[in-house]
């Protein structure tokens, strides 16, 4: 496998094989991504969504490269910045649990879209 | 009952007309009258408010007995229950500025009432209270009193009456770092095009999102042979010998300390503990090496992995400490380490 998906979304874990499932929050998922980046895995997809409403989602999936190389400082900066930004919003907010199922679906579909972008690459 | 709003005022021994440097050690006192700048200040309130009393404290006393001074001041403020608290202006007086800042911050945090002071932009007290207080920008000496008081009084009136505060430029205060959302006359795209035209013509333009400026320190060259290197230990985690002999502050440190550790294997309890007021001290007090790992460094020294551990260990408290003070501490400590022939430093923070 070229990529690993780090996700706390059960729908993603069901559908794909190359998933590292985080049984926890989005923050824990992002922290796992951060740890992998420091170990030398590059980010394939950006850790954050493109809108605030989806930032409030209780589910998040991020793609990182399976291969472990030297630490990529730009990627470390991106994941650290993303965690800061995530916490800035969510530390003062309640997670929107009422729409969990919709968030799961949208996270899955956005992930699929990102994976499509990655198709046909070596 | 008067319908005027009530102001409580703070000044140091000098502006409290007690005396100069020789009286800087006097303990805090409270007088139910207007003293020094409080008189001129009240006259600028246009009878809308009154100064109900003046707190006076010696600058040295405050800085050396911060907790006692603050607790005295807070007791008075709680008892007198002013609508608004005013301190200074401190101009560029460092200890006075720090006292005004610490008190303003404490009053804002604990009492939730508006606080106003005045300072020169480089006053070391500024960073401590710029978010909590409205700090009127003053000149660097008491010659600026006549200009400072009207601005301080004007913003005090607005705050007391709950009126909207204008921009820092309009009101004369030092920006608190707040990003205020406003509706303005020109839409964003027009502002962008105007900014573009200025940039293209080489005219001055003002970005709407100033990027923070960081001091980038160029890293020193790598140590070639660790086994011959002298390594020093330095922390902002507030680890001090029992009793805190140099009275290093638990927050907003004004000083640093150095302690001979040449005869020790570790910074063990109860000989050492932390005076840091910004984190849960339980684990640090159990084993102070958790914050400043002298034990491991000494092991490395024995193994020959490093050449030597510096005889002195350096320490201060990081929490709330102003950037200006931190820069000063760093420069002073760096100079000593260089003179002592230290090759590398382990710096720990909390």
């Amino acid at each position, binding site marked *: 496998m070229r990529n690993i998906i780090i996700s706390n979304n059960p729908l993603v874990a069901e559908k794909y094989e190359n998933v590292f499932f985080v049984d926890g929050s989005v923050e824990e998922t992002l922290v796992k991504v951060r740890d992998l980046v420091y170990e030398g895995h590059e980010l394939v997809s*950006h850790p954050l969504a493109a809108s605030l409403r989806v930032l*409030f989602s209780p589910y998040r999936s991020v793609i990182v490269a399976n291969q472990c190389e030297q630490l990529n400082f730009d990627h470390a900066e991106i994941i650290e910045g993303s965690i800061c930004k995530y916490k800035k919003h969510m530390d003062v907010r309640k997670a929107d649990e009422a729409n969990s199922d919709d968030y799961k679906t949208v996270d899955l579909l956005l992930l699929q879209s990102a994976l499509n972008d990655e198709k046909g690459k070596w | 009952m008067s319908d005027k709003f009530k102001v409580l005022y703070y000044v140091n021994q000098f502006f409290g007309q007690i005396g100069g440097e020789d009286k800087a050690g006097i303990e805090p006192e409270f007088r139910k009258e207007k003293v020094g700048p409080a008189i001129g200040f009240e006259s600028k309130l246009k009878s809308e408010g009154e100064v109900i009393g003046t707190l006076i404290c010696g600058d040295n006393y405050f800085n050396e007995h911060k907790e006692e001074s603050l607790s005295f001041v807070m007791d008075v403020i709680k008892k007198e229950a002013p609508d608004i608290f005013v301190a200074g202006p401190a101009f560029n007086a460092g200890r006075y500025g720090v006292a005004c800042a610490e008190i303003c911050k404490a009053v804002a945090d604990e009492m939730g009432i508006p606080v106003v002071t005045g300072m020169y932009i480089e006053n070391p007290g500024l960073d401590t209270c710029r978010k909590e207080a409205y700090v009127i920008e003053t000149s660097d000496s008491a010659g600026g009193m006549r200009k400072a008081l009207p601005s301080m009084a004007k913003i005090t009136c607005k705050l007391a009456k709950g009126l909207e505060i204008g921009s820092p430029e309009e009101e004369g205060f030092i920006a608190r770092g707040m990003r205020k959302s406003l*509706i303005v006359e020109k839409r964003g795209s027009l502002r962008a095009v105007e900014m573009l035209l200025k940039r293209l013509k080489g005219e001055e333009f003002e970005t*709407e999102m100033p990027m923070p400026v960081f001091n980038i320190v160029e890293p020193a060259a790598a140590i070639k042979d660790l086994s011959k290197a002298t390594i020093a230990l330095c922390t902002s985690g507030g680890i001090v010998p029992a009793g805190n002999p140099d009275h290093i502050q638990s927050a907003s440190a004004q000083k640093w300390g150095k302690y001979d550790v040449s005869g020790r294997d570790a910074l063990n309890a109860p000989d050492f503990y932390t005076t840091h007021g910004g984190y849960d001290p339980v684990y640090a007090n159990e084993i102070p090496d958790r914050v400043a790992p002298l034990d491991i460094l000494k092991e490395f020294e024995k193994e020959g992995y490093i050449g030597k551990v510096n005889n002195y260990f350096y320490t201060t408290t990081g929490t709330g400490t102003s950037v200006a003070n931190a820069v000063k501490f760093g420069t002073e400590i760096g100079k000593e380490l260089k003179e002592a022939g230290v090759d590398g430093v382990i710096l720990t923070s909390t």
Partner: protein
Amino acid sequence: MKLEIGRIFIKDIQLGSETSVKSGVLTVDESGLIAKLKEDERIKDVKIDVARPGEKVRIIPVKDVIEPRVKIEGGLNGFPGVTAKPAQCGEGRTQVLYGAAVVTVGDIVGFQEGVIDMWGEGAKWTPFSQTYNLTVDINVIDGIDPHTHEEIVRIAGLRAAEFIGQAGKDVTPDEVLTFEIGSVFEETAKYPNLPKVLYAEMMITQGLLHDTYIYGVNAQTILPAVLHPNEELDSAVISGNCVAACDKITTYQHQNNSVILDLYAEHGKEINFMGCIMAPEHTTLAGKFRVSDYTVKLAKLLGADAVVVSEEGYGNPDSDLLMICKKCEKAGIKTVLITDECAGRDGMSQPLADTAVEAVAVVSTGNVSHVITVEPAEKVIGKAESIAVLAGGWDGALAEDGTFQCELNAVIGSTSEIGFHNVTCRLY
């Protein structure tokens, strides 16, 4: 390319039995419009309503806003590539029902929130409290997947705007605006000494609820493309974004892109406005690198001296914005960026995560977390339950009398990063 926009000023909307404009009053044939939209058999029912400036009306959740128009000369009517056959946009004469808007309502997922308040505090923060809004609330039949659902609502909104736009066909406009820019060679010959300026418009293109279309092409699949500014002003670009309420570019905002309009105003005077680069925002880092490289390459190829860059959305697109900025500045091309920021509820936290030393000229369109307090509406158009989505953000946000606090990020167009609205942040 020369485009004339004939503006017919609309001063009210009424529902009736014919579609027409008389003395500035737009009458919409309600049953005719519903019948037209229900030609799509996947639509179960349609509710039409009107919201006027000042009325105590709340519209939620808003999907898109579209300006009703009709093409009377050159090109094809409608939205070429979507509701009409492929055709060139940006030429001839287009008549606009200026001051009217079609607002589509209908939730594809439960967490949509975009709100338009027509009165009071909420109205200050959205540009669409100033338009006469014809709301189109669409319900689809059961068993429709989210992608198809989004598409049905998106296209229904466009078709409604097209249907209503017909009312302006034979009306003499109150004002005619002319937009004309020739080839880059012609313009450069005319204005040899004026700085050459491009507009790089970033678009959310990331999948479901996060898409933009150009001539009907999903922009996720394109490399950055150069458009003549007239094309976008003439309905070539369409929004498929259902989230990012505060900073998405609705179709209306594409049709009236304020950056294009304000750059146009300086064309031939202070600048030589050479066109728009449409830059997709990808979720993958590879996509972000590719697009930023390609955008800068196009700017260099066209010899641009400066680029205005506008963002769409918040979060991962902030990376694209800074990449484009850094690479442009490195290539000697001056940038002005337009973006919103997050400074926390109280404005006291710094937007540290999104900084670059190269970003020296930035327009801030406001703090997405700025909290506003709004009173209960007399009438809610759309789905009243959606109010819970935006009101339930944190403890104490909802008062007993129905007054609630929400962040600007839930308000349509509040912090528009094409600078469509008048919000900003200042250091206090």
